[in-house]
């Protein structure tokens, strides 16, 4: 394995990008990602916060303390992982986190790995999805992604820019990927509108250092309140209102997540209005 350290975008030529490494290193070690070449992108991906733009290389620890950052995102960052991980992990990498689904992590030949069925649907799935789960019931673990969805963030890559919503896709028979990024496309910046009020509420199995069972972000803008959900679908999930929760398709072991989502939704809405 080789490690490249390009000093400009122009030098970038394939390879697997690595920044904080908190996500990629464990995936490499477990054989879930294979790479001949790692590209340390810390020199070429912007880091820092300025006037509604957040460099993709900014760490979660930097975001959680910066007063320019909307509350929902600060709270989402502060509730993620542990201080050590937040000091290393970047917001760009966080948006591209792989699921914690134990079947996927243990390399079961599941739908997400290209197989023909989702083992979690029939198996042990108490941490799994209640939306978008007919083919793959994995749950997306990113707290900040839910906050950024509610905030209506836009993603700027080295080739284009688009709403965060468009970064994600549900897996299909033809393509089991969960993002729309092209090979070696790099997230450089996030553009984050300033809401009138925002919050992020998270339910987990213990007080700290756990992925969300359910995370609900709400952000109020002049034209209304937007919501983003974590831990409820294979990708970060958006709903328009409480009624959308009625359209969920929980598995027998994930019904309780909906009850939590309803309570957190109500509380988040109250908090921002």
């Amino acid at each position, binding site marked *: 394995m080789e490690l490249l350290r390009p000093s400009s975008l122009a030098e970038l030529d394939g390879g697997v990008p690595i920044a904080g490494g908190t996500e990629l290193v464990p995936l490499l070690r477990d054989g879930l990602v294979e790479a001949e070449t790692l590209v340390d992108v810390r020199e070429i991906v912007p880091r820092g916060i300025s006037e509604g733009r957040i460099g993709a290389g900014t760490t979660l620890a930097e975001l959680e303390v910066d007063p320019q950052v909307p509350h929902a995102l600060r709270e989402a960052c502060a509730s993620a992982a542990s201080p050590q991980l937040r000091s290393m992990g970047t917001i760009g990498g966080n948006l591209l986190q792989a699921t*914690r689904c134990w079947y996927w992590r243990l390399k079961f030949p599941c739908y997400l790995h290209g197989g023909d069925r989702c083992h979690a649907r029939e198996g042990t799935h108490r941490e799994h999805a209640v939306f978008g789960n007919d083919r793959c019931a994995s749950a997306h673990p990113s707290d900040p992604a839910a906050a950024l969805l509610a905030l209506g963030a836009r993603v700027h890559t080295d080739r284009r820019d688009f709403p965060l919503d468009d970064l994600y896709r549900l897996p299909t028979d033809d393509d089991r990927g969960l993002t729309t990024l092209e090979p070696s496309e790099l997230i450089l910046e996030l553009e984050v509108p300033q809401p009138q009020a925002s919050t992020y509420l998270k339910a987990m199995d213990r007080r700290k250092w756990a992925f969300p069972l359910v995370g609900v972000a709400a952000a109020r803008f002049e034209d209304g309140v937007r919501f983003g959900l974590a831990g409820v679908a294979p990708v970060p999930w958006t709903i328009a209102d409480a009624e959308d929760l009625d359209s969920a398709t929980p598995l027998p072991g994930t019904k*309780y997540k909906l009850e939590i989502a309803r309570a957190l939704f109500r509380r988040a809405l109250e908090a921002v209005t």
Partner: protein
Amino acid sequence: MARLIRTEKEVEGNYTEQWIVVEEDPLERWPAGALETVGKPVPREDGAERARGQATYTADLQLPGMLHAAVLRSPHARARVKRLDLSKVADTPGVRAVLGPDDLDVFTREPGYPGAPVAAAAADSYGQAARALDLAEVEWEVLDPLLDPDEAVREGSLHDEPERYERGDAEAGFAEADVVVEAEYRTQTVLHNSLETHQSVCEWNGDTLTVYISTQFIWGVRSEIAEKLGIPEDKVRVVCHYMGGGFGAKNHPGQYTFIGAEFAKRTGRPVRCALTRREENLASGNRHATIQRLKAGARADGTLTALQGEFVMAVGWEGFQSWTAGPMKMLYGCPNVSTVEYGAKINTSPNAAFRAPGFVEGTFGLECLLDEVAAKLEIDPLELRRRNHADVDLVDDRPFSSKNLIECYERAEPHWARRQEVRARSEGPWQRGVGMASQIWFGGGGPPSYAWVRVGSDGRATVITAMQDIGTGTRTAMAQIAAQELGLPIDRVQVALGDSARGPYAAISAGSSTVPSMGPAVRAAAHDAARQIIEIAAQRFHLEERVLSLQDGKVVSADDGSWEVEEVTGLLEDAQILGKGARGPNPTGMRVLTFGVQVAEIAVDVETGEIRVERVAAIHDVGRVINPLGASSQVEGGIIQGLGHTLSEERLLDPESGAVLTQTLDAYRMPTIADVPEIVTELVDIPDEHLTSLGAKGLGEPPIIPIAAAVANAIRDATGADVRSLPITREEMLRALAEAKEKARGAPAAV
């Protein structure tokens, strides 16, 4: 003169008779309460060393030329190896040796659980060994696993005959009852997940095998290895100076040690065989899951008339049936008790002892059931327990050597009295409540155990015994006992332990037995040395021995004469004073047990199922307390580990294949410091006047026993919901709340 006597020895409720040799007369008992050193809070002798990372654990050991072993484990819960070819493994660069089922009987061709060892490789680095094993060619015939313990009982897949116990007539007891309560409780499989994974380093020097190992029982490891290898015990040296946690899972050498020993023999090099965190979660033992179908009958005044329990234990492919029915048999003075325990043989990894095995599980069921009885009779739960106090041990009709459970209840009163105030603090979705549960367990230890004490001319003492300190603060407690007996300040006493070649036999550190087994031996050795110092002083100063004593580093006479100890020992120059001591017998015909009660205050968010444990008061009766500071650490550790069992930890399986899904610490959720409540520790600290010269019992296990039931009972107090299954996840909490709501809807309106 040496006297040969027959005595009873108990470890975790297993009683065996054995011969011991007693040389000394029993020592005079120390007065109750804090003495000069014993009974005072003393910081850990090795605390700074551990905190600085200077203590050398087995995991830190690097020997010149050391190889690293990796183990090929079955990915299947039940399978047969049809073909196994390790030739590519052996040909991999860096690999020095491979072992398979034909070489060593720890490997199997018919694995019965995921993680069963099939083969191993030893290489220059762990990575080389592990990657080489990926090249092993294995053809599996995968078989359907049996995973459901109830199904195993139906099919008769059991480890032993069902264990039945009857006292009195349970049916008659239920007939006499004014209320009968029945409920099913479930507890999950949990893992020890010690900070230091199971491991050892084996090195042959000629015909002697040295085993550096993370262990709870140096001498047990020595015997088991000698027996397995067919060599004399003195040809096995076992070393464990520091240890990163065991909790019952490290009482034996383990397959990894036999693998390491064989590789070391074949290669002539030292070999480390260490489990990875994933292997630790797969195949290093666990607290097995239980299903408990319980029934209690009581009169209107709360007197229990009958208790009945069927206990199904998911032992695994191998292992032992822990004593889940124990609390039901022992905790209350109920005349009619009927229990049956089934040990299900299923395709899951073998269980191992885990901090009060069986009693943690059985106490959850029984103590929740008691609260359901209390609720039905509208009797205060604490009062109900008082009314059913067992004055003698009814299992074999013996008196207790000491029992201060009533005193524990008294001391619990002020904590219990907080419940009105706690409930009143309920606000919005957060409902608050208080619950309690009692604790019973063993913890008397027993012989044999030995210690030596060496006093040099500088007046410093070293306690020498080949025991282990498994992280509980044993070094410090032993130093305190020796310092007390020798009348020396604690900083002039050190403890040398951890090496079978450098000290006498010492007991296992399991079953809350280290202090009660080892403490009296250390005191006897120190007494022997103290006696010699006084004899020398009497001759030096022309006084009678009976007027001399040792206090605060001085030899003191009854007429106020006082000499520094060095004035006596200094005469010796290079000579030394050597004392030796042994653990005497346990009291004949008595039950030596520990008792306690815990009161938990909790808050439940009834909309999201979140549970916060806010305060736990722990009151335990373990006889004399040697080190109150160490004791409160033990209580805190037990409660925190118990809260993991209560709220968040669970080994999850794929129901189809039996694969372990929670192999890493992000999936297997232990409590973090943020989950720890305020913990108030109170120890009754009344010496057991029948047990040894110390009157001290063990405290390792008692604090983990009642916490789950105390929390579940507090949840009922706060919300009216019956949680009967561990862990109490949000899913379980919300289910129980919905059930309670349903029940309330169906119930007749309150008047």
